[in-house]
């Protein structure tokens, strides 16, 4: 009798555990679905290649061993415009320390982007994602969004919204290669 009782306990426990785990997992995934972060901190940053305003190709994997400060933006987005000059200043500080800055414009015309970079005197490479495929791969929703990618090509942090110059400096510090 003790044996059947033991067996019953095991059977019941395992059935309940399986069901509860399945349900909790389902609820968890559907609850977090809205902010689908297909990409999460610690994930490998998807590789991509885009062409900048000077016709130069930038491939993320070329920057392996360096930190990459990857910023998604648009000319119409005011917080993007606000943080650009600060990003440019910090780019000058950190580029020699192995932190690359790359700004990805979302499918705007060469003219608009060129004019914007001229106006703000930006020195870091600005690439245009014409088919929004990089935006899709990184699941960018609000602009600006910034991805901190460390020297191993892993995502260190995802920042949505405007950053202050202080923020930018500390983020670049964070992905500085050893």
């Amino acid at each position, binding site marked *: 009798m003790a044996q059947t009782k033991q067996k019953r*306990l095991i059977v019941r426990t395992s059935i309940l555990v399986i069901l509860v785990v399945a*349900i909790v997992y389902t609820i968890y995934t559907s609850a977090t679905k*809205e902010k689908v972060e297909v990409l999460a901190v610690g994930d490998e940053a998807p590789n*991509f290649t*885009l062409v900048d305003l000077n016709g130069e190709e930038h491939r993320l994997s070329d920057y392996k061993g360096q930190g990459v400060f990857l910023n998604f933006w648009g000319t*119409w987005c005011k917080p993007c415009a606000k943080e650009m000059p600060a990003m440019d200043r910090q780019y000058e500080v950190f580029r020699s320390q192995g932190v690359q800055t790359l700004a990805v414009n979302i499918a705007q015309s060469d003219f608009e982007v*060129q004019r914007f970079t001229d106006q703000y005197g930006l020195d870091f490479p600005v690439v245009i994602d014409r088919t929004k495929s990089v935006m899709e791969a990184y699941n960018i929703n609000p602009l600006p969004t910034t991805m901190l990618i460390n020297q191993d090509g892993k995502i260190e942090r995802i920042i949505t919204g405007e950053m202050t110059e202080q923020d930018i400096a500390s983020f670049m510090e964070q992905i500085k290669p050893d």
Partner: protein
Amino acid sequence: MNNIICVCGHENPEGTVLCGSCGRPLTEEAENQKLVDMRYEGTARRSQTFNKSIVDKIWNFFSSVKIGVSLIIIILVAAAIGTILPQVLYVPATGAEDIAAYYERVYGTFGKLYYELGLSDLYGSWWFQTLIGMLGISLIVASLDRVIPLYKSLKKQRTRRHESFMKRQRIFGLGENQLGEDTWTKSEEKLKELHYHVKREDGAILGEKGRFSRWGPYINHLGLIIFLFGVMLRALPGFYVDETMWIREGETRAIPETPGYYLKSEEFILETYDKEQAGEVFEEAIDRVGTIASNYQTDVVLYKKPEDALPGQTDKLEEVKKDSIQVNHPLKFEGFSVFQMDFRLDELRAMHFNLSNKASGESLGEISIDLVDPEKSYDLGNGSKVELLGYYPDFSGFENGEPQTKSPVPNNPAFLVKMTTPETPDGETSFVAIKQTVEPLGDNAYKLEFQNVETRDISGLTVRKDKTLWILALGGLIFMIGVAQGSYWNHRRIWIHETKEGRLAVAAHTNKNWLSVKKDLDAVTEVAGLPPYTDQHDLEASEEKKDGEKSS
């Protein structure tokens, strides 16, 4: 754990009402009843057998039908509440703030409360899904707890039952055996003719048919569980995609959630019924409404990027196929379907201007500004040119003297231009917007005169993939099989016994449709000379009725 040992020697688990083997009542309550409760054959539901560890307590909680029914009622009420106001999904606002504002603006304080309580996204809320999950557990546990003992009990039922079991059946009769030994053979023959499975032993016959109808409710539950499982799978990546994309004529866009597919829109087509051609069928309707759309169509080219290509690399796209997406004719590829869902006509694509002398009206030529890819400078060839200094696709006003754009969409294009002509070699600066021209550096001799626009259409497409559909269909099918099985077949049993005194006892039981089992028994009685029976339920009911009359 105490087992109950019946007089017949059979060992029954605690909680059993009727002995699993001979059918003797085992509880005082059952003994005092005139009719036995045949639910689950009087077996102990597994949950009742013992109640000790915490796991057993949880198990018993979910095994309870009361809990199951309560869960269903709670879910029904909650689901009903979710229909009072439109859910977030159907509200024309995006972003948490806009949505909150929308509810308050349109539905007032109640709307605000509704939103803040999270009822605006009720079906996606964790607590609603938890309730559904609990219902799922309840279905599984309650079914297991009942179907296993029921199966065992029906499998090992004996042909001969105890007299006390027979006596407590709803249909029961006792009398003399008129045909002697013959009665057994004739009963067996007749029962077989009526498609009963007959078990016969010395002085006892059990005729049984339609036992599988007893599994109906459990098959039904199985279908529901499969259905819920299918719904659950939708939350997992790769099983379910439901995305929208807007694509303009001429654009190539990555298709969301697909592995490296791109779509190019060649053209959006909106056709209406022609009164002449549609003839009588639509004539009246066309007269009444004006125009009736006959076709919404987007001509597309599907591309796939090569295996080794990276996102952003669009120069090496491989064409997969050309297709026309129409309503109900989606573009299909690799389990995905792209449906025609929506459209917007006539978004600005290009603007044409005349460079003309304000005083004389003389034109120096025309320029066309591509609003998607404007150029830096437009040369008119006769020593005149127009340089573009700024482009504001969705002009929203000036801020510190600087023109602003509120989106990248050319809803309200504006340009800052420098016009150079042989007459004005230093150039004149002008800000040109729709219905507005500003000359910031003083009066100009020349102006850009708006001529006309080119437009293009935008297609709204839905990208869908549903790998759970067949699971849902299977669940639904099994559900219906269970319903049919339990509804259209009945489990009928007829017992014929010789008592110790040498008399004949008959009893019958069915899970539904008592009239039919009586008809069957009548037929057997006629050929085998069985004693007449009474429906003790009727007796009980009429006695109760009498009691009721007395007391009133």
